[in-house]
């Protein structure tokens, strides 16, 4: 589904983050992108979202070269993604309003789009129907992220991109939302790419884990993690082993 080919990217006046970097994601996979701060993981996500363009090389999603944000990709950021002057319901409707604003021009919005499920369905599904008329400042961090997820899913994406989506939440809320994210991905057949700096989160969310090095990143270091998200995973031995392996790799890189 995603094909990254000899990608090069760097911000001006800074050392390059990626250099002839190749990576591929198949439809329906759940990926965690793990790495220390400054390794370029958020930049990689922005590149996948079409918010930044490669200096050279290419990113193709579904065989189409990415030159701008793609209507079928949903992006969820850590915080500040909601409009503070709009209620939860208005925030969830936002994507639909944007599509109406431009009309089906094929550029900002898909040529034909008929939402199969209503805004009400998603408010219910994410458990935020009760607070639909509250403003973001009135609800908890977990509820804000539920709102952000609902807003994305209303547009029926096939690819979900998340940047440290749960890192400002308390442990219980975080684990709740991780489980919810995985079940939504399975239910809607979504491909998931989650960027995180937390080893445990990567091990829970990513059936495959991409570990980024200190830049520039040249090769994709991939770890298989087939039991990600399964019940009792956190107590299993394979989970513990994977976490300590990832931790060793990360320490080795930053040393």
């Amino acid at each position, binding site marked *: 589904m995603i094909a990254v080919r000899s990608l090069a990217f760097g911000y001006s006046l800074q050392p390059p983050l990626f250099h002839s970097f190749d990576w591929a994601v198949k439809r329906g996979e759940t990926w965690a992108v793990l790495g220390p701060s400054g390794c370029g993981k958020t930049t990689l996500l922005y590149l996948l979202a079409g918010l930044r363009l490669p200096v050279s090389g290419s990113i193709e999603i579904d065989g189409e070269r990415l030159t701008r944000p793609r209507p079928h990709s949903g992006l969820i950021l850590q915080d*500040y993604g909601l409009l503070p*002057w709009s209620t939860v319901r208005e925030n969830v409707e936002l994507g639909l309003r944007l*599509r109406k604003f431009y009309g089906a021009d094929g550029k900002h919005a898909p040529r034909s789009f008929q939402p199969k499920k209503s805004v009400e369905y998603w408010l219910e599904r994410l458990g935020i129907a009760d607070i639909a008329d509250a403003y973001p*400042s009135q609800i908890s961090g977990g509820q804000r992220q539920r709102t952000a997820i609902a807003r994305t899913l209303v547009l029926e994406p096939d690819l979900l991109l998340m940047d440290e989506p749960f890192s400002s939440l308390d442990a219980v809320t975080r684990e709740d939302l991780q489980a919810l994210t995985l079940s939504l991905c399975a239910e809607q057949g979504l491909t998931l790419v989650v960027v995180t700096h937390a080893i445990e989160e990567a091990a829970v969310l990513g059936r495959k884990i991409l570990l980024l090095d200190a830049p520039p990143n040249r090769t994709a270091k991939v770890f298989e993690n087939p039991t990600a998200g399964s019940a009792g995973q956190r107590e299993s031995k394979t989970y513990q082993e994977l976490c300590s392996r990832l931790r060793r790799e990360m320490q080795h890189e930053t040393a």
Partner: protein
Amino acid sequence: MKRRDVLLAAVTLLAVWQAAAMIVDLPILPPPLEVLGVFFRELRRDLLVHFAVSLWRVSAGMTLSVLAAAPAGLAIGGSKKLNRFFSPFIYLLYPIPKVVLVPVVILFLGIGDMAKIVILFLILFFQILVLVRDQASGLPPQLIQSLRSLGAGRRALFRFVYLPASLPAILTALRQSIGTAVAVLYVTELSATRYGLGYYIYFKGSTLLDYPAMYAGVVAMSILGLGMYFAVDWAERTLCKWKFVG
């Protein structure tokens, strides 16, 4: 702030005025009740016309400045390039006290309403421009990126992000500059006109020595300022509900 407290404060201030009038006991400081009587009498004569002229001038200046400064502030605050180019100019022009330009503007535009409106415009324009610019450039980049990923281009960003984000800034700028605007209005109405509350106050006080009528003019001017203040408050409560929750 409770309405009852505001009312209580108003009554207290009137009592202080009454006491001061009794202590001073001179025609230049009539007691509030006498002024109130004169106020309503004058209202039936020509005070209302002067009030309307002043209201028209100050609202025209305000409206024009919002219409010009808000889009300019949004454009400058929303674009790094424009901000880099214009900010040094704004930095130099913003602190100049625009009221000193009164004679210059009158020389250029003559003695009509236009000169007075333009001066008010100049004062309010920079206040609003600076606040809206800072509001627009201070928006979290995550918010902009989220909207772009939902398909928002430049036009939608303005409609769905920059415009609603700048509304509180516009209202704050207006609230902050109402006092100055009314003060400057008074100054501009001292000369080159025969209408307006500034002219009325000056004429009754200095030429006719009709002090109660002069105070009636002062009351009218206070009502003008207070009324605009209330209007902005009301607009903020209606348009920026999210500011008053939680």
